[in-house]
């Protein structure tokens, strides 16, 4: 992998490790607040009256931004990962099916994909998120259901190419069923391109998760997610801009990391 891809991978690995280790890295709990009068809106680097060091300051309730960032990473990264799993699963299923079966079913599946691609994703997200009770599970389902189309198109395009290869004909001659040929022969050859698209989708998912939570339609406060953190930072933008700036930087890091990895995978496939 080219150096830029390794940097991206390192960024993602460090952030994922930080999310896993959040309870040990965070000085206090994500919703723990000190004396609200003495500890609210402490600037980054301040030490409060009970001697706790606040690397990124505190918010309007005196909660430690660094601790909330770490715990928010768990929610945000987990939700985005699961959403990506849903969208990749659905995309591979639909795209693969369209490639393997021929005729009318295939045309219907492709038409469905083209149609879904033409929908404004955020409008759908808003609808789905607003009509049901907002929760992390809903965000996973809605992001998954609105993110499968590029994966389906990619799977279809690459699978059709693979299905024309001689080894597929060989397997068919040996009596391999269509499902077996797809899973055993086609999918492993499509996987490298899928990996690049999946990484890119992960970056998108985390950004959209935060967007939904930011609008109050995703993960609900007081649970810390990067979106709820940015949203609460927006309310205190005048006197405590760090509350919203810090989680945003983390978010951008993840998206940049995912883009770098996806680019590297695309340019020199494994």
């Amino acid at each position: 992998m080219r150096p830029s891809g390794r940097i991206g991978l390192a960024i993602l690995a460090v952030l994922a490790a930080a999310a896993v280790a959040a309870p040990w890295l965070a000085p206090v709990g994500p919703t723990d607040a000190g004396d609200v009068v003495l500890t609210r809106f402490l600037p980054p680097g301040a030490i409060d009256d009970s001697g706790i060091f606040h690397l990124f300051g505190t918010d309007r309730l005196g909660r430690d931004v660094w601790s909330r960032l770490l715990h928010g990473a768990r929610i945000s990264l987990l939700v985005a990962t699961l959403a990506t799993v849903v969208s990749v699963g659905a995309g591979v299923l639909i795209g693969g099916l369209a490639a393997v079966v021929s005729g009318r079913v295939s045309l219907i599946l492709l038409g469905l994909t083209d149609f879904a691609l033409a929908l404004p994703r955020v409008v759908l997200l808003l609808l789905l998120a607003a009509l049901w009770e907002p929760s992390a599970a809903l965000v996973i389902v809605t992001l998954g259901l609105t993110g499968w189309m590029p994966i389906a198109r990619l799977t279809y395009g690459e699978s059709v190419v693979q299905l024309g290869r001689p080894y597929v004909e060989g397997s068919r001659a040996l009596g391999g069923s269509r499902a077996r040929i797809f899973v055993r022969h086609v999918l492993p050859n499509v996987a490298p391109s899928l990996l690049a698209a999946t990484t890119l989708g992960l970056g998108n998912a985390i950004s959209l998760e935060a967007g939904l939570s930011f609008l109050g339609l995703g993960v609900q406060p007081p649970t810390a997610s990067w979106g709820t953190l940015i949203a609460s930072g927006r309310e205190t933008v005048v006197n405590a801009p760090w509350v919203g700036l810090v989680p945003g930087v983390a978010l951008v890091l993840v998206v940049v990391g995912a883009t770098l990895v996806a680019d590297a995978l695309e340019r020199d496939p494994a």
Partner: protein
Amino acid sequence: MPAPLPPLRFGMIRAPLVVFGVVTLTFLLLHLAPGDPVVRLLGPEASALDVARIRAALGLDRPVAEQFLRWIGRAIRGDFGTSIATGRPVARMLWEAWPATVILVGLSIGLSHLLGIAVAAWQTTTRRRAVDGALSGLSGLLAALPGYWLAFVLVVVFSYALRWLPAFGAAGLDADLLEPGARLLDRLAHLALPLATLTLIGIGTTARYTQGTLRRVAAEPFLTLARAKGAGPARVLFRHHLRNGLIPVVTLLGLSLPALFSGAVFVEGVFAWPGIGSVLIQAVQARDYPVVMAATTVSALLVVLGSVAAEVLLHRVDPRARS
């Protein structure tokens, strides 16, 4: 073996189909959603009789299919009903909102493509690797920025720290009292931050994509031929390289419209920019069903019309697409 995936094209027949699909989907989603909208609307204090009366008044006691056909019939005549939350005609709310969205999205598409293509052209023609690398990094970073957060950063810097630009709205409170010249300046000042947010992100996406297509054309023999004929670098770039390298960008323009519109929804929300996106967010949060239906329909229409326009443009710029 099915035919290879056809290029994503709308055509005049598929455009209305997509809009119809969006409308049907929205309607179904609204009716599949758990909970009675009227109970939500009136709150826990409403009596069962009140709920029943409002249901009847809104036509919600009818079968779903009948409600749907009624809605379509009225929507075709431009009647989107009355907003539950504000009591105003929905058509009027949207009629007031759409120019703001079209101005914002249209200007940002124009600006971001112009600047994004310029960045990509600079990258492909420069001999200095450091410049190429720096521009790649910059466009990658811009493309990665979530719109609502970039908006937040711009507000922190330009509205609160520097105090140069207003943080939200489309016009100042005193806009109606200003002289025409000053009023225009006030409008432009309010447009600046939302437009900058969308444009900066757009530059990143366009530059990344265009850079790839220009690089693929860079090795073509006709460029070598043009240089051998003695054409200067500017002529090679504009007459030969860009003319061929930018064709896929036109397709990208059509494909990226849904994403652009989606981005605009968040950005409109953050800046309280009075467009379709803001109307939609407020309606969704207030569960104002008639407004949600209409705003979704109009946004789908805008996206589809944009895609058709991009396809027409493609036919104009690429003689090969006409056959």
